[in-house]
């Protein structure tokens, strides 16, 4: 009798201690699901899943879809959909490939390998992505054509505009500087990775501190100090653990030798060097931070969520919901261009099939990440976690030896299941 009472009391205490941390339960659920996926595959592959090498590959494979998924959150939150992201990625990739292999070296006469090639190509690609996205937004917002139709048309149009731009050819190799954004071809190295990790931890702590100070200034309730410390510790260990895994992935000796040779040096005996954080992952992190700030701390973000929650109320509050639609799709277009940089740099050339079926992966990532198709709710971190979970499932199954068609069957079922779990969760929490 006393025993059960005690357990109940302890359970309650545990719960309140947990509540004190004020961590979003949805976020926790997704992290839990992600860790479960990793652990299961790690056991199935006898420890090969969580090796530095595989974690490295997993992250660089996730980047392209994850970047677009953050934009898809805005699109879906405003009750729209974008089926054209994969095709738009292909067009941006084609534009950038042609810019760096033809326009800059030949038309501008700068030749191959000029340091300006990559910046020019990326700028042109981003402008193209934003222009196409804004055009979609205009068709949807001002001409009131449903987003489903506009972007379904866009899927067919842009996929084949890409084909037209390159005359159906594979364009490559891409510029060397440009290739740095592709993952394995561009990493920070050990020292800079650690510097990055430490800066990230300090920034996170600073964020926690300023949030707390602002709450105290307005005399709101704050969490107990120990909860802040635990949270800060968790964030720090997550960031530093991630960095240490990536730096532990060592550059093959043969490749290192070649690097030393190129510099006219001889590699010392027994020298090793880790890859560290890929530049593409850095790009994703920057995109994620900016998109989170836009979502939570800017008027634009506030209007996006308000419009998703109640379009009429937003309009009555003086928000120009048509222009908002243009902006949302313009952001989506820009993110498609950034993803195109990462995706084409990763394969070191532009191909016709680049980004094929990405629209479905991107939508799935956003939805698995808790973005409601009814509009009005969704998070950036959720979409990125969703992309990570899907990529882990897929590459995990590939490592276990599941054939690609079966992988797709599993991913499809997981998508439906994830949405069902989300519905149950919403029903229980009532939001």
């Amino acid at each position: 009798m006393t025993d059960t009472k005690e357990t109940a009391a302890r359970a309650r205490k545990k719960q309140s201690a947990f509540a004190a941390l004020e961590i979003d339960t949805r976020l926790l659920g997704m992290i839990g699901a992600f860790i479960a996926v990793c652990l299961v595959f790690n056991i199935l592959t006898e420890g090969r899943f969580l090796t530095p090498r595989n974690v490295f590959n997993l992250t660089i494979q996730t980047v392209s879809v994850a970047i677009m998924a953050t934009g898809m959150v805005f699109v879906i939150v405003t009750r729209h959909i974008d089926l054209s992201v994969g095709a738009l990625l292909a067009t941006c990739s084609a534009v950038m490939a042609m810019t760096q292999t033809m326009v800059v070296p030949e038309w501008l006469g700068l030749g191959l390998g000029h340091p300006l090639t990559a910046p020019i190509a990326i700028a042109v690609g981003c402008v193209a992505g934003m222009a196409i996205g804004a055009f979609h937004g205009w068709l949807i917002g001002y001409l009131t054509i449903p987003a489903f139709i506009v972007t379904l048309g866009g899927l067919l149009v842009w996929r084949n505009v890409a084909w037209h731009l390159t005359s159906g050819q594979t364009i490559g190799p891409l510029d060397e500087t440009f290739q740095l954004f592709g993952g394995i071809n561009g990493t920070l190295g050990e020292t800079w990775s650690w510097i990055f990790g430490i800066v990230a931890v300090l920034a996170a702590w600073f964020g926690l501190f300023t949030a707390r100070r602002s709450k105290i200034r307005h005399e709101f309730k704050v969490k107990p100090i120990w909860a802040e410390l635990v949270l800060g510790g968790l964030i720090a260990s997550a960031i530093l653990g991630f960095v240490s895994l990536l730096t532990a992935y060592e550059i093959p000796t043969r490749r290192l030798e070649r690097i030393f040779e190129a510099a006219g040096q001889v590699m010392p005996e027994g020298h090793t060097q880790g890859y560290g954080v890929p530049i593409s992952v850095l790009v994703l992190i920057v995109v994620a931070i900016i998109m989170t700030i836009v979502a939570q701390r800017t008027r634009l973000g506030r209007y996006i969520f308000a419009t998703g929650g109640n379009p009429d109320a937003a309009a009555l509050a003086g928000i120009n919901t048509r222009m908002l639609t243009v902006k949302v799709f313009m952001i989506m277009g820009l993110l498609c261009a950034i993803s195109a940089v990462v995706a084409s740099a990763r394969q070191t050339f532009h191909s016709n099939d680049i980004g094929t079926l990405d629209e479905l992966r991107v939508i799935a990532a956003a939805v698995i990440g808790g973005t409601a198709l009814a509009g009005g709710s969704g998070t950036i971190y959720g979409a990125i976690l969703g992309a990570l979970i899907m990529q882990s499932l897929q590459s995990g199954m590939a490592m276990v030896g599941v054939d690609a068609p079966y992988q797709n069957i599993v991913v499809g079922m997981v998508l439906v299941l994830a949405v069902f779990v989300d519905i149950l969760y919403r029903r229980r929490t009532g939001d």
Partner: protein
Amino acid sequence: MAKVDRSGTPLVELRNISIAFGGVHAVDDVSVDLYPGEVVGLLGHNGAGKSTLIKCLSGAYQADSGEVFVDGKKVSIRNPRDARDHNIETIYQTLALADNLDAASNLFLGREITSGIGLVDDARMEAETRKIMGRLNPNFRKFNAPVSALSGGQRQSVAISRAVYFNARILIMDEPTAALGVEETRMVAELIDELKRQGLGIFLIDHDIHQVKTLCDRASVMKNGKLVGTVDVDDVTEDDLLGMIILGKQPEKAA
């Protein structure tokens, strides 16, 4: 009730407003006015054109013809933002709240407080919301919940606080008590009296004739998009008002 002084310029004047939707004259050549410290009730059946008329003032619709004067000056109200710039605030029947956002985000929707670098200052907006709620509805506690989690009365107080916070001079209330209980209705009535004393002008759309008789100074009755007439509520009986609404006939002048 003290008599309203109508010797000066009206706070707001709608002159010869007409608006049609696909050939149907929703509002047909209607003129109404409103003086400081006055509550004017708008009465009529569903579809009589009350809400449509008022939406021409709040910027939700644009009148096909007619003029709007604020403080005797002609103004053009093309969208809700223009209306807000003239200190015209509206509490819609639907409340017009974004259900997924919290009270503070709704209160400041479209007019967020931003910090020096242009980011929205949630903490300050919540503090301001707590302040005004302390005045309007001291029992309000759920500052961090989305408004979908609030009761009808709490939602109403969010909508009202939004209108009051920004120093409205002209307030439009579209059936503010339709979804409320007895206690909450009384609170709204008290609030209307307080705002009136502060010199606001209020257009009150309501179905409840009894309530219009107690809360309003004048009543304008509409039928089929046309104005039947505007009367001083003290000069007419509830039956007179009913006659205007149902039959569209002017009461015989008492005085």
